[in-house]
């Protein structure tokens, strides 16, 4: 199977005044197509930094990152933007939906920046994505008219709409109660079953337990990379 993510000796340093913070040190791993991976670690372990790089929002200081076989490290900003648009679907802890904009329009948003999708097809694609997260009846509702779980499902639909190679979720359940957490996780697991590669950054053991592979970071290094042969089932 082809690697969706291939990270080789990746480091990321920040210069804050006189102190040099080493957020990631010589990290190497790869993620194959169709995996469901949790990246965990305590706060300050470097998982947010890693997510930024994996999401092409940030560049490594040293080392290589290949997304779907494409070397990203030295890429120009505008190419990075189109890579984000076409290869990655983001899910954020705080949903990041545009207020006063309907669910459908929120889901359409990534397609606006994709010249390959004609304007006429956007609505239909967005509708199908909302269908997959079970929100067909909420299409014309605004975020303020929906529950947190529903809002996160809209955000998942937005991540799906471009049919990306990789879904990157940053603490997707951090703002949700246990019932909504269960719902959101089962959607992510379903997507994975259907073939999507999903990477979840989380510090919740419950969430990590549902993933087939758990990468644990500590102080900018990989502390453990465990395969979980029997993840907690979708229908628990």
């Amino acid at each position, binding site marked *: 199977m082809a690697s969706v993510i291939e990270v080789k000796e990746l480091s990321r340093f920040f210069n804050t005044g006189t102190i040099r913070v080493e957020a990631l040190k010589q990290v190497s791993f790869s993620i194959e197509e169709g995996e469901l991976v949790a990246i965990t670690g305590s706060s300050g372990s470097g998982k947010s930094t890693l997510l*930024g790089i994996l*999401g092409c*929002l*940030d560049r490594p200081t040293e080392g290589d990152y290949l997304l779907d076989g494409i070397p990203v490290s030295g890429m120009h*900003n*505008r190419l990075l*933007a*189109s890579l*984000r*648009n*076409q290869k990655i679907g*983001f899910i*954020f802890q705080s949903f*990041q939906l*545009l207020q*006063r904009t309907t669910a459908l329009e929120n889901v359409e*948003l*990534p397609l*606006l*920046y*994709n010249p390959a999708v004609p*304007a006429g097809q956007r609505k239909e694609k967005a509708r199908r994505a909302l269908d997959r997260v079970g929100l067909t009846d909420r299409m014309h509702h605004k975020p303020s008219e929906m529950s947190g779980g529903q809002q996160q499902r809209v955000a998942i639909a*937005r991540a799906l709409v471009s049919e990306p190679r990789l879904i990157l979720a940053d603490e997707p359940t951090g703002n949700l109660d246990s019932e909504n957490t269960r719902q959101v996780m089962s959607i992510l697991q379903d997507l994975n079953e259907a073939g999507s590669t999903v990477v979840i950054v989380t510090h919740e053991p419950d969430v990590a337990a549902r993933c087939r592979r758990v990468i644990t970071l500590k102080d900018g290094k990989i502390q453990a990379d465990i395969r979980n042969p029997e993840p907690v089932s979708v229908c628990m």
Partner: protein
Amino acid sequence: MNSKDLLKISFSSLLRNGIRSWLTVLGVVIGVASVIAMQAIGNGSDESIKREIRSLGVNVLMIFPGTFRMGGVAQSAGSMSVLETGDAVAIKKTMKTVNAVTPLVQSGQQVVYQTQNWRTNVTGVWADYFIIKNYKTTQGRLLTEQEASGMSKNCLIGKTVYSKLFPNGGNPVGVTIRVGSVPMKIVGVLEAKGSGTFGQDQDDVILAPFKTVQKRLMAVDFIQQIQVSARSEHEMTSAQAELRAYFLKKPNMISADGEERFSIRSQSEISSVLGSVSSVLILLLSSIAAISLVVGGIGIMNIMLVSVTERTREIGLRMALGATDRDVRTQFLAESVMLSVWGGILGILFGYLISVTVGSILNWPVSVSPFSIGLAFTFSALVGIFFGYYPAKKASQLDPIEALRYE
């Protein structure tokens, strides 16, 4: 992102902050409206001066004693008594290019009829003056040639004088009024001429025989002006040359330092001096208006900066979802241009309304030229680009990770 999507996004984000957008637009509206109005009113005042020249007759020439400098201060007429009644007589007799001549003296006098009292200008003229100025009467008759060239105590009154002396109406013809110390009989009321370009009342006047005013009322020898009308428009130049030659032949018409002690001006030259004064004023007002447009632009910049800060998370999100720096910059630039262009359109409408209103109050033929509309529109769009660029650039340079975390 295609331009239709861009316009839609920009428009809906402006709508989300309705009141704020309107207030921002208002600055540009005021700027553009005043530029348009100033232009139109300026054109109107020029046009009204031209119209007045036409109504006064393009063929009129005036001879003043002393010098008359364009754009400078005219010396008071009559300060040097170089003009004589004899000159008017000679001009009338000898010059073929001229069809009417009158000497002119003018004096402010108290006019009394029964209990009514009014101060007005009494002008002493020959009968030719009525031809030059195209005067008619509404009641009674004009002065005859004989009356006007003699010492008759008949006079004509303007409409304003009539309404002041006869507040209850009635026929003034044949009534004797006291002008200064001289009792005079009214033979007619002049047709109204309305107010001049600069608001002076052309009907607040009494016309009386030249010699009566000069000798009886003022007791002087000099005359203040000679007015002449040329036979036709193309004979103006030759009439002017002929007049000049005549006066230069007279003794004492050149002062010790070589300056001519008379000047010949046409009505249109005098009006163009007034016109240039008014265009300077309009230019000044227009530049103030242009400054207010710049102030409006600064208002747009201010609001766009606030908007960029407020929408930091949205910008971060758009970038994460694939917007390039160029996409973000174009979006914010489109918003500021939309504000300023909308302001420009409204400003043109308001400016037009102001111009039409002012025009109808002052009775000026105000016209909003397509050129000034185009200019105002282009300028307001440029204001939007100029003042929107910095906030848009700032937005496009945000770091997406930090922008997404912004609270």
